[in-house]
């Protein structure tokens, strides 16, 4: 009960804080909108009179990018910047002094920012749907069996992205400047998360590389379930793999945190 109350208080404080930076946040949000917008325009001209490309009808392809924009906006968290800043400046010490663990603090912080993003996203999605026409909704392939799996994949996708990014941020315990590692991570994420194009349209070798990486489980799996690109059995298998990645990422985060705090406590904040 107590921790629920402190979580709600944290969420409300982060929300108030995020709300004060809404113009900046909106500009960042526009970056997430521009990519899919450009891709939709490109694919529209690429389709011409074609009925299908790579197994996607024009309606499915448009819905793919609207879905990708929405899920990326809501599930792609960024705790790594703040965590690495805290470690570099010594602000991380506050998490070691009070009975509030750093992970809960940052988790609630990310949630608050995502709620703000949801406010921005809702009217933009409505505008996209009005622009693309009702035909685009024919690409929704959820069934009663897969609806729950879809919700589950959203939760695991969010957690997987969060744990990995926290672990990434915690590298600042050892590195004076983590931005190089961040950029390598972001580059791989960009290539293999599915935001450029559906992953099943990538060349075979790239698809195989992507299968060994966690990025496809951020939101591509959810989108595949949502569009009915995979059946219930494949969705279950996907969810199981996503859950395993999630557990692995959580453990990696705990290990990096444990070792990092030992290092931090050894040399001072």
């Amino acid at each position: 009960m107590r921790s629920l109350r402190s979580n709600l208080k944290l969420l409300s404080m982060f929300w108030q804080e995020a709300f004060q930076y809404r113009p900046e946040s909106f500009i960042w949000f526009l970056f997430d909108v521009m990519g899919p917008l450009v891709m939709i325009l490109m694919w529209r001209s690429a389709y011409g009179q074609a009925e299908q490309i790579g197994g996607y009808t024009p309606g499915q392809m448009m819905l793919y990018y609207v879905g990708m924009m929405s899920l990326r906006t809501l599930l792609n968290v960024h705790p790594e910047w703040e965590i690495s800043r805290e470690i570099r400046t010594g602000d991380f010490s506050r998490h070691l002094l009070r009975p509030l663990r750093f992970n809960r603090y940052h988790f609630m912080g990310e949630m608050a920012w995502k709620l703000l993003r949801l406010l921005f996203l809702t009217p933009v999605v409505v505008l996209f749907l009005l622009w693309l026409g009702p035909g685009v909704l024919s690409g929704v392939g959820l069934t009663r069996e897969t609806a729950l799996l879809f919700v589950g994949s959203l939760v695991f996708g969010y957690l997987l992205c969060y744990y990995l990014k926290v672990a990434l941020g915690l590298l600042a315990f050892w590195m004076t400047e983590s931005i190089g590692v961040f950029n390598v991570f972001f580059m791989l994420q960009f290539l293999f998360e599915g935001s450029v194009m559906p992953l099943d349209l990538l060349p075979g070798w790239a698809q195989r590389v992507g299968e060994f990486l966690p990025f496809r489980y951020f939101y591509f799996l959810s989108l595949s379930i949502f569009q009915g690109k995979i059946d219930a059995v494949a969705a279950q298998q996907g969810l199981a793999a996503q859950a395993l990645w999630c557990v692995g990422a959580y453990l990696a985060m705990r290990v990096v945190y444990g070792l990092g705090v030992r290092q931090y406590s050894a040399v001072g904040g």
Partner: protein
Amino acid sequence: MLGILTSRHPDIPPAISVRHLSKTYRVHKKDPGLWGSLKSFVRRETFDVRAVDGVSFQIETGELVGFLGPNGAGKTTTLKVLSGLLYPTEGEVSVLGFRPWRRQRAFQRQFSLVMGQKNQLWWDLPALDSFLLNREIYEVPRAQFDETLEELTAALDLGPLLRVQVRKLSLGERMKCELAAALLHRPAVLFLDEPTIGLDVVMQKKIREFILDYNRRRRATILLTSHYMEDVEALCERVIIIDHGKVIYDGKLEEIVRRHVDRKTLAVTFLEPVSREALEGIGEVLEFESQKATVCVPRAEASGRAARLLNEFPVADLNIEEPPVDDVIRHIFTAGKE
């Protein structure tokens, strides 16, 4: 060194106990310039810095102790070990019966560390929001929280500040709010690292009065570091002086003056002008104006020399004074360096 290593109350364990504490940092060495960077990239040289070296002391429940030392003496490192931010390299540390570096919640609910140059308040929100968050994370019952907040608001004049964004407060106002945030859960142990740094004299005095009042009312154990001797003189009966990582004095503040200074000063005002040469027969003349002077004399002979002064000169007023404490402390630090 005057050691206070055994508890004055054998039945009651001390609030803070530090035995043979040492803390060594490994520091990377790098020559300046590009060549230095390349060299350091190929072969990284390190050396050890012993920031704290065999420090021992005990602090009883309710004591307010000044922790003094020049920059880099090991004060903040010791405070960080006591609050659980650093692992000790060697030695035993216990605060309220806890090993601080285990960072148990039960321990964290009972102490606060206030660093004058760091803040825990949320920059973009009113201080009251940070206070309410602390109520939840420290699990303070609502009635107790309201009572404490009321007390703190009255003592620190927080009323008009509580609903203003922290970033819009002045440094002094922010420091008052920081202190309040640190005390809302009524910590039994309080570590204050330079709590009055950068504040004007009026605000320094207010914060000092408040700390003393909190110590007395709540019987809180307080360890305070400060570069302002006024803080230490106003608050601390006992001081621990640390230099080069070692405790060089642990005892009463007044004792330090007696032990380390073998002289007193006679501040005298005359009814009519006197000659400097004549005064030099009494002691070393530190300051001289025609009808006013300060004369330094051996501590043991202070009364005799004062009597001579009264007999031989037309004295209007005479004071026998101890040298200022910060002069004494400076003298001790300088002696330590030499």
